[in-house]
Structure formats: structure tokens, C-alpha cells
């Protein structure tokens, strides 16, 4: 059996609309100034090169920050400036600041937004929801087809260890740049997409390198209210081309207020906790000796979920220092007809933002009647059952333990770099089946 749901897809790019009319074109410029080989030669975009932070804690040193001012403030100048520019150029489908928004009374203060424009003029489309990993399909809409005017800048690690900004940098096709583009259906001011190595056409699937990039972007923004999110396929991602979303909303999200209970501290200092008193069950990752430690642990957990075909959402909060991982089953329930019609009627798609407590509502009625209780009711449907959550956790911890074992094993090895890469790859490939033989081999090595 194949599970499908029908839903109105969110339009992320102005070029998504004419997908139906899309036909194969030969090179020579398709006339849309896109990011494919037809239009990319000679194209230039601003390039922001961030300084690699090694220590997760470094940003809040006890005696403050002695660093000199970067040439461009990433969030306050670059993201917001470029975004406002696109707004004044009329590239968005609506003015999101004209959408009413409020905090719903209640312990956590769920945030509701009335957004009547986001889903207009789109017919419902079928989505397959039972396959978290699907191959990239170049015939479908993907971000290489957006117009260059929708791309704000290229985002890369700086080579000389200092923040650098180039207002007009050529696009280095060989090195497939990561880019930040606008979401033309924003749910808040500054809503953008981070598309890692855009020209590599990666499917929606977490890998260590891309996840680290997302964490770096959160760290670079340096503002706890600028968060990144990720939806896997089957957990309300609409486009199968690797992307993270991000936007700016200067109120705490309910999920960030929920208490947590520590499960464990890994040897590299990463602390894994469990969300408590929240309608959706999930894990919280924080700490770690380096941003890379934290990133790798979360990536491994995500890889484990996607390899086990479990849909999930990720929220990167607090400047990349706290990450929420939420396996979910709403779409599956929806496909199986297990979601109540009242909930379906609201047409709320519980993706990462909704799960985090920012509810985007399409009908005035739902907005006016929005209550703490309704939010809990919806989100309760999203959550895995207690039993299933335990099972999934066991898988995740196993996957993380494998990563840990390898790290430990390699500590004694002189030439660790190449080896760790090889083993990492081996693990990624074999982790479809939990309890891989590899674990034991590694342990024997010790």
C-alpha cells in the first residue's frame, strides 16, 4: 500500500506556479534568470563568508566579546536588508506584516497568525507520505529553477577565518555554493530558505555537512529569535530538494518554554534531554564541546530517523545551541483516515513551525477561536505514542552510540582524519538496518 495525502502545497518560489507548463528547454538562457546552466554563466550574487566557530560557548564569553565588528551584520543588515529589498520589489505573494498575529492565552502562549493569502490560488496536490527518502527528480520544481532575484546571497565558510562580505561574487559552479533565498509565502518577516550546495541537487535528506551549515547560520545570526527549521518528507516538506527554513519572530516559542528532563550526557559534552509537558514528544540536544559535536550528534539522529523511514521535524533554536528533534506521524494518520474531520478542516499542516507552537491559520474563524486547548488537540495528533516514541528513541540512541564509539576508537589512532570519514560513510550506508555488525567490529577494535 502506498500512503498519500492531498494538500494545498505552499508556494515557496514565484517560479513554482508554472511548474505544469514547465518543459525541457535547451541551454542559452531560459529567460527566467534561474540558477541552472542556462542562466548561471556570468551571474553574480553577494557572498557572505562566516567565521567558523569551534566552541559552542564562545559566543557568550564571561568577559564579553572582544571580537572586532564584522564588515556586515549578518542578520540585522544582510538578511533583513535584502529581504526588505525584495519586499519593496514586490516579490512576495502578500505582505506578511499585514497578517494579524497574537499570543494565545495559556501557559505556553501559543502564537497564532491569520494568513488568508498563503494558500490561495492553488489546487490540492497529492503527496506521498510514506517515504521519507525519495530520489531527487529534476523534472519537478526545485530551487535551481528559482529566479536569481529570489536569491539573497551565497553563504559559505570563510577561508581565512574572518567574516568576509563580497557584494558581487561570481557563482562558483564547481564548488556548488549554498544560498539563502526568500520564501515567497513567508510566515513571518525575514522568512528565508537555506539551500545547501544548491547545484548538487540534493534530495530532502539530512547529512552532517549540511546540518552543520544550518547550525552555522543560526550561530551567525546570533539572535535567539532567528530560528531554523527542517521538515522531512512525510512531515510536510513540500519540495524534495534539500532546504532549511528560517525566520525572525521575537517571541519565545512554546516548545522553547517546555521543561525538559536530561537523559544523558555524551562523552563530547552533548546533552540529550526529553521534552516534558509538551503535546509532541521529542528530544532536545544542547551543549557539546564544539558546534561540530552538537551538529554531528543531531545529524546522526536525523539520519537514523530518515533511514528508518520515520518522518521528523527539527527546530534549531537559541542561535544553534538548542535543537529540538520531533519524530511525527500526522501525515500517516491523515492518509489512513485517522485524523478527525474538524482538524482536517482547519487545513493546518503541522510542520516544524506549527509543532514549535507558531500556528498559521487560514480561516478567520479558526483564528478567532484559537485556544490553548485547540493547539494541544492538534499537536497531540502529531506526536508519536509513548510506546512508539520509546522504540524510536532506542533506535536513535543506538545510532548515536555508534558514532560515539567510533570517535572514541579513533582517539588512539594517529591518522584520524581519513579514517573517520571512511567509517562515517560506512555507517551512513549501513544504518538502514539497526544493530549493524559494524558496531561490534568497532568495539572489538578497541
Amino acid at each position, binding site marked *: 500500500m502506498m500512503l498519500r495525502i492531498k494538500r494545498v502545497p505552499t508556494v515557496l518560489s514565484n517560479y513554482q506556479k508554472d511548474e505544469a507548463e514547465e518543459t525541457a528547454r535547451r541551454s542559452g538562457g531560459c529567460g527566467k534568470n534561474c540558477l541552472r546552466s542556462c542562466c548561471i554563466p556570468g551571474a553574480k550574487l553577494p557572498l557572505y563568508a562566516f567565521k567558523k566557530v569551534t566552541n559552542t560557548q564562545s559566543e557568550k564569553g564571561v568577559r564579553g566579546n572582544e571580537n572586532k565588528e564584522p564588515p556586515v551584520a549578518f542578520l540585522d543588515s544582510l538578511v533583513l536588508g535584502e529581504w526588505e*529589498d525584495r519586499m519593496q520589489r514586490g516579490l512576495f505573494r502578500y505582505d506578511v506584516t499585514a497578517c494579524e498575529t497574537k499570543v494565545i492565552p495559556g501557559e505556553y502562549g501559543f502564537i497564532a497568525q491569520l494568513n488568508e493569502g498563503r494558500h490561495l490560488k492553488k489546487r490540492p496536490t497529492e503527496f506521498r507520505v510514506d517515504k521519507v527518502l525519495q530520489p531527487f527528480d529534476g523534472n519537478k520544481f526545485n530551487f535551481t529553477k528559482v529566479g536569481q532575484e529570489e536569491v539573497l546571497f551565497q553563504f559559505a565558510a570563510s577561508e581565512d577565518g574572518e567574516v568576509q562580505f563580497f557584494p558581487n561574487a561570481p557563482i562558483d559552479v564547481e564548488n556548488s555554493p549554498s544560498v539563502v533565498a526568500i520564501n515567497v509565502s513567508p510566515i513571518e518577516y525575514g522568512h528565508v530558505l537555506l539551500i545547501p550546495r544548491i547545484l548538487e541537487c540534493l534530495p530532502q535528506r539530512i547529512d552532517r555537512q549540511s546540518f552543520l551549515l544550518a547550525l552555522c547560520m543560526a550561530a551567525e545570526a546570533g539572535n535567539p529569535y532567528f530560528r531554523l527549521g527542517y521538515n522531512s518528507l512525510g512531515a510536510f516538506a513540500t519540495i524534495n530538494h534539500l532546504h532549511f527554513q528560517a525566520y525572525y519572530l521575537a517571541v519565545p516559542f512554546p516548545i522553547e518554554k517546555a521543561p*525538559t528532563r536530561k537523559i*544523558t550526557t555524551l562523552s563530547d559534552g552533548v546533552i540529550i534531554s526529553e521534552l516534558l509537558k509538551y503535546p509532541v514528544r521529542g528530544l532536545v540536544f544542547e551543549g557539546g564541546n564544539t558546534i561540530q559535536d552538537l551538529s554531528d550528534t543531531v545529524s546522526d539522529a536525523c539520519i537514523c530517523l530518515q533511514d528508518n523511514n520515520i518522518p521528523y521535524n527539527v527546530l534549531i533554536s537559541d542561535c544553534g545551541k538548542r535543537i529540538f528533534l520531533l519524530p511525527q506521524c500526522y501525515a500517516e494518520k491523515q492518509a489512513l483516515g485517522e485524523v478527525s474531520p474538524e482538524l482536517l478542516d482547519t487545513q493546518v499542516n503541522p510542520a516544524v513551525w506549527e509543532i514549535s507552537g507558531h500556528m498559521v491559520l487560514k480561516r478567520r474563524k479558526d483564528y478567532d477561536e484559537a485556544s490553548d486547548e485547540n493547539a494541544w488537540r492538534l499537536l497531540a495528533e502529531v506526536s508519536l505514542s509513548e510506546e512508539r516514541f520509546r522504540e524510536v528513541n532506542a533506535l536513535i540512541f*543506538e545510532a548515536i552510540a555508534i558514532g560515539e564509539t567510533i570517535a572514541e576508537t579513533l582517539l588512539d589512532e594517529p591518522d584520524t582524519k581519513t579514517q573517520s570519514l571512511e567509517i562515517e560513510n560506512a555507517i551512513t550506508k549501513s544504518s538502514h538496518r539497526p544493530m549493524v555488525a559494524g558496531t561490534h567490529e568497532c568495539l572489538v577494535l578497541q
Partner: protein
Amino acid sequence: MDSKLRLIQQSLNTRYSEWIREALDDLPDNFTITDPSISGHPIVFASRGFLKMSRYSREEVIGQNGKIFQGPKTNPRTVMEIREAIREERGVEVSLLNYRKDGTPFWMLFHMRPVFGKEDGRVIHFVAVQVPISTKQRRNGGVSLSEDGSGLNEVVFGSCRKEVDSDSLLELRRVLSLDSGSKVLDIEETCKASDFEERRAATAFNNILSVLTHCSELTGRLVCGKRCSVPGAGYVSSSLNISLGRIKQSFVLIDPHLPDMLIVYASDAFLRLTGYDRHEVLGHNFRVLNGVDTDTSTLHQIKESIQTEQACTVRILSYRKDKSSFWNCLHLSPVRNASGKIAYFVGVQIEDDCKNRDGHGLSPEMRQLSAVGAVKVAVRTSSISAGSSKS
């Protein structure tokens, strides 16, 4: 920097009688006072006790934001609670881990409350009392919610651990060091204050407040601990003030709902550009910048853009306080609040001659737009109806 120090001096001097500092210094408690209307929301007073506890000198603390005392083990959720309380202009009481100048951490009970102006209900200052928590306190290891952590059941943790164990992966257990208790932590993860410390904080706050109230009576600009009047039109909340204070560019906010469209906010950079003092522009019409050679058709264009609620960019001859003129590339844009209605117009100025295009930073136009963006975010989020969170 000098002008900021002057603002900090004025912060206490304009409200209170001249011996306010001495009076506050006579109090034995550890506390700081901040002014949300100054950019960066700096500390404007630190008590002797506070300096002794934190081991900083007064010069090192005045003008800084309270967050300089935070460090790696400071719980971000607690900081978030403080941030929210400030945004909602209400009090908060939390256990907070801070660091002394030498880098050593200590736990304290952080008790913060706003102080309001009696006549207009604005937040004038925030006062925070920091009561050190004695180390012999009971603690709740592992639970990051200090208020109710003790009440959580063991089942959650227990069953999860069993799950992993039941896979009989003994190695796993070792690797993951699931027995986090076996690790010796140098500092407790949470810490709960006793009733004694809570009472001490409350008493200290009341003593500070009575000093402030008393000293404000002498200037006739009264302050009080409870909001006794609702701020009227033209009021920019302290949280909006704090957010706007972070924006470096020259800009003003105009309230289009007030008769004569008065300026309700002016940034530090605007004051530097024009040479005015804040009180000379707040509550005045934007016309203050016009002079004899200002083109009336451009003024008309501005008016029209406000009427039609559209953004516009004009080049207009403006005048500083000293009557010297400059070409002002002015960008105007409507700014909406959380209900989606236009709350203000923002006007961002760039001095035409100063447009440096060194090719490295952002273009002046882009910086102008980023100020518009930052103002939009600040206005929208500071007006999201608050009061829902627990206080």
C-alpha cells in the same frame, strides 16, 4: 561613548534628587538599575554590595548590559524568562547562574521589577536585586526547570534507560555514560532559592523602591512600583525602545495617528546626524529638519506617500540644529503592528555625501532597507499581545 555616559548620568539625575546615589549606596543589598530607553539597555547604577559580589569595579559595570555576567553554564531558558519579562514590562524571579570578573560562577536569586512613571505609566527603570544563594542548598540534578523539577516522576527516565538496556548493549551503556550521576559536575545544574532568600529579595526591592519614590518626590517626577496610568498615544513601550535601540542607523518613527504626525522615536544616530537632543525632537513634527531651501514639491511627495500608505525614497535638503544643511536621502515606509495595521512610519536618513562605497560592506541603500526591516520586526513583535505567559 561620551554622549552615552551623559545619558546614563541623566537617567538618574532628571528623575531623582541629587543625593539619589548616596541614598542607594546606603542600602546594603546587591542590586542594579537599568534604563531601557538608552540604547543597549545599560546598567545606570550598581550598588556597593553588587560590585563586591561580582568583583567588578563600578566603571566596568556602568553602561554595560546585565548579560555580561552570564557565561557558558548560565541556563538559556532562564535568560529567556528574563528577556520575556522585560518585553512584557513585568517582574520576574528566577535562580540564575552568573560569573564573577575572575570567571568563577555563583548562583543567585534574580528578582527584577519595572519602575513606572506615575504621570504617564511608562517604564522608567528596571531594578534587579541579586541575592546569592548559599551553596548548601538542595538541588534538583538533571532537571532544567527549577520551579517544579522536583515533582517530576522517575518513570520517564527509568523506562527509557530500560529500553536501551534491554537491548543488552552493555557497551552502549558504558559509551553513553548513562549514569550521569557518576560524573562529578563542578557546578549544580539548577538551584532553588529558599524562602529566606526570596523574602530577602522582596524586602530589598521594597527598600530600593521607597528610596526611588522618595527621591522622585523631590523632583516632582514621581515613580511608582505599579503602573498607575495607561500610557497614552505616542508612547513607545520600553520593549520597543530596547529593540529600536539596537538599530544603528539614523531613523525616526512618526505616529500617523497623532495630529500633526509627531516624532515618537529618534535613534542615537539621528541625533548625531542632526545635532538635536532627544527631547528637542520627540513630540515634534518632522518639519524640524526643513529650512528655507527645502523643496516643497518633495515635501508634498512625502505627504502623499504617507497618505497613500506607500514607501518612498526622496532626496531632500535638510537642516541640522546649527542650521547647516545636508542632502538627505530619505526613505519612508509604513510599519505595521501585530494586528496588521499601520502603527508608524519610519523615516531612515542617509547623508548623501557620506555614501561611502568602498565595495566591502553593504551599500548605503541596503543598510537603509535593513533599518526598515529591523524596525518592522521590532514594532510587529513588541506589539504581539502579551500577558499570556506565566508571571
